[in-house]
């Protein structure tokens, strides 16, 4: 038995020869994320009169390669909040572990006031801002959906720079260009939230997912959708886009071999 814990789990010198440490360089500087590698595209979300709907597709792209097709980008937190992740998937997985440890800590300490969406947004925004200030950003754009301290619908965003904002409808990435205009037609301001039902909100969010699938090359027709209300979260992770209409494709002229 070797008595140096540092050497445990390493190949034995008498069997394999001494380890060539140049294979595992530890004496360079720590590398920070300088650009995202495996990425998720848009997350879209909308408030309605007694909750929030949020959706994201299940694709993780490696550049233009559709690399992982079953990646869940909506994360439930203590049955009251859903966090949607756009951007780097490994940073999403790091945040997932961070939220897991936070949840465990919270469950041990206090049971009366569980963290609500507003609390979680503040927490995540500070994590993001701290990391950008250390020049070591988490390459994500997060949407946090749930209810605030007064059980009112809450929807806010935090990005890799630590920028935060809240709006009746939010969308990250490509969704900011394609989904937001559709969502804002239904929900132009905070006052309109009261007039929108769950069915309307779900419908418009699904419509947005469809438009994004039509026009965002890094998207997929399999997606996750969550509805957060006072009585809990309903999260569906294996939805398929319905009623797609490719009729418009017939009328497109001028691409590829089509010349006239």
């Amino acid at each position: 038995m070797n008595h140096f814990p540092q050497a445990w789990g390493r190949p034995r010198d008498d069997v394999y020869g001494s380890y060539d440490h140049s294979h595992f360089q530890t004496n360079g500087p720590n590398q920070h994320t300088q650009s995202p590698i495996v990425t998720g595209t848009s997350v879209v979300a909308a408030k309605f009169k007694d909750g929030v709907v949020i959706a994201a597709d299940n694709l993780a792209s490696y550049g233009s390669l559709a690399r992982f097709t079953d990646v869940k980008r909506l994360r439930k937190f203590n049955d009251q909040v859903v966090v949607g992740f756009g951007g780097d998937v490994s940073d999403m997985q790091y945040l997932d572990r961070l939220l897991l440890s936070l949840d465990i800590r919270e469950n041990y300490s206090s049971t009366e006031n569980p963290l609500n969406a507003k609390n979680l947004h503040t927490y995540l925004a500070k994590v993001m801002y701290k990391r950008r200030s250390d020049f070591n950003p988490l390459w994500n754009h997060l949407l946090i959906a749930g209810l605030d301290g007064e059980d009112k619908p809450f929807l806010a965003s935090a990005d890799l720079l630590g920028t935060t904002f809240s709006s009746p409808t939010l969308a990250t990435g490509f969704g900011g260009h394609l989904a937001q205009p559709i969502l804002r037609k239904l929900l132009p301001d905070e006052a309109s939230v009261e007039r929108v039902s769950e069915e309307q909100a779900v419908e418009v969010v699904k419509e947005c997912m469809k438009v994004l699938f039509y026009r965002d090359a890094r998207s997929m027709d399999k997606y996750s959708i969550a509805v957060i209300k006072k009585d809990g979260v309903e999260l569906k992770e294996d939805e398929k886009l319905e009623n797609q209409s490719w009729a418009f494709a017939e009328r497109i002229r001028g691409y590829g071999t089509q010349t006239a």
Partner: protein
Amino acid sequence: MASVFTGAPPQGGPGYSFKQTPTVALSGERQHSFYPYTDNGGSTLGISGADFTILAGDTRSTHGYNINTRYAPKLFKIGGEGPENKGSRIVLSVVGFAADGDALKERLDTIVKMYKYQHGKSITVAACAQRLSHILYNKRFFPYYVHAILGGIDEDGKGALYSYDPVGSYEREQCRAAGAAASLIMPFLDNQVNLKNQYEPGSGTGHDLQAKLAQPLPRKDVEDLVRDAFTSAVERHIEVGDGLQMMIITKDGIEETFTPLKKD
């Protein structure tokens, strides 16, 4: 027994410690593709009067050509009681990089609240203004990328207004516009508040011209001036719009108003 591996750390390296520090200087320059700032657009404006100060800002938050939200306040009450800042008499407005603005606001708010716990009295605007300058200057080499304007009532009961650059240079002024449309609003303010390029009619020509003297404006006039400044800025600047938030600080407290602006 056969020779087992030594378990000693490799030569020339820092060893098996958990926290590794670089021992070799890196050759060449490393490129950073991460830029820690962004511009969230919007504009703010402050005018002080004889016994009041008005701060105003639009509520649009942008990212490039996208609108993040139509309601993101740039005006924050500082000090007072609790998270709602009850009884506060100081307002901070920040425009530029919103994440830095929020961080700055939280730092100043905490400091002003701690001041009251420690000294048993509310901080004066002059002291608060200097403290804000120090906070900004402390981050001189990684600045809060914001143009701050601080407003309140001074110890003589007069309206007080301080404006800052991102690294803490500050001065007390009668009026100041900051942010995206500052270059559109400021000349208007120079002319209408400080009466620049306005002369007494019939006072002569050339060097005989008598400049009109600026005097503190009544509150109603200032509010109208602010609204005019913003409705005009909305027409000419794409990052300004959606809503106008105003805070009027008097000895009796802070009044807050909201006026819709064009959303296009």
